[in-house]
């Protein structure tokens, strides 16, 4: 790794946090993550790339929208609870106004055929966006300690439960989730024993 002396910056104030997050939330069409990485790591240099990946992993583990979790965590790290609130408010306030304005505009034309059609088209595209993101993420399973076949089985089981049988989400998350976490634990524990045996040998 090329060691360049990285002088990290910090958000100057809670206002700085709020404005920065507002700015990047308003740039994020269809997904804020890429913008977050570019702004906070490359441009503002509030954290290194490694730190960003760690924070992102935790933000993803926790329930809730992951970019919102990330703004909460970053704000909290620098300014405690007020910072966390400033970060989340920045991430949500301006985009909320924009989305409600869009809904209002759409409400006044929603009976027009072209508006119905436009929404139909956008709905089809957003289904494709979500599916495409899901398929892209499958490659991240390659490094999963459970190995690919077990991952695919777990994913297929969840898909059947939620999409085809339309079971409540809680059942699937608790049921299939418990199997997944348990199996991952077993595999990680095996890996750990193997590594320590190799170390001794």
């Amino acid at each position, binding site marked *: 790794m090329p060691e360049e002396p990285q002088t990290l910056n910090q958000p100057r104030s809670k206002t700085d946090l709020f404005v920065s997050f507002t700015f990047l939330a308003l740039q994020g*069409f269809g997904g804020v993550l890429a913008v977050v990485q570019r702004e906070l790591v490359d441009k503002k240099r509030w954290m290194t790339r490694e730190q960003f990946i760690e924070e992102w992993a935790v933000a993803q583990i926790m329930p809730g929208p992951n970019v919102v979790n990330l703004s909460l965590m970053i704000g909290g790290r620098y300014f405690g609870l007020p910072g966390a609130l400033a970060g989340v408010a920045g991430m949500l306030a301006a985009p909320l106004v924009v989305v409600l304005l869009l809904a209002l505009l759409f409400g006044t034309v929603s009976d027009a055929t072209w508006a119905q059609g436009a929404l139909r088209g956008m709905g089809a595209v957003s289904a494709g966006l979500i599916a495409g993101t899901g398929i*892209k993420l499958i490659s991240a399973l390659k490094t999963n300690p459970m190995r690919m076949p077990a991952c695919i089985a777990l994913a297929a089981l969840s898909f059947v439960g939620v999409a085809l049988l339309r079971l409540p989400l809680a059942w699937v998350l608790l049921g299939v989730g418990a199997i997944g976490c348990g199996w991952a634990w077993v595999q990680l524990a095996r890996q750990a024993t193997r590594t320590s045996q190799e170390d001794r040998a």
Partner: protein
Amino acid sequence: MSTLVNPVLHLGSADWLGMFQHFAALSLLAVGGAITTAPDMHRYLVDETHWLSETQFTSSIALAQAAPGPNILFVALMGWNVGLNAGAGLGGGWFSAALAALGVVVAMLGIMLPSSVLTYLATRWAHQHRENIGIRAFKSGMAPIVIALLLSTAWLLSAVHNQPARDWPIYVLTLCTLLLVWRTKTHMLWLIGAGALLGALGWV
């Protein structure tokens, strides 16, 4: 009952509380983003309570995807629409606007509050213990399920269009988008715009 027509509702405080509780419970289950709870929201808001029409549900997701910002705002739009239905559409004036705003607050607080509190409290602990086997097992074990939930959401959004003879262009558009997102770096805004244009012209 047709779910394509916007329902007219009379919601009492117990109903609003019920919605808050349902969203608050989903908040803690929303591992991998709130969009993964969309199938359950559909079950609750469209199938069970009939508070939202099928069209309102789908357009809430589509509009939030089209707008800048976190996709979680689709929840705000669902709350907004439930409020509008309770105030009998935009014709209800300030009364219905107030109910719509109440819907936004109830839905967003419900979906945000539990997960945010949990995240805030757990963050330092998780940061200090990121090599802990329990945390790694949770992350690895949930990964395939999170992916399946994304695919399920896409499936349910497409399954609304259930007449292949008429709806096949929709399926083609969804598949093309899927391929473009997967294989290329096309900006998502262009795709949303193209979908809107094709739809407005009546081609899908």
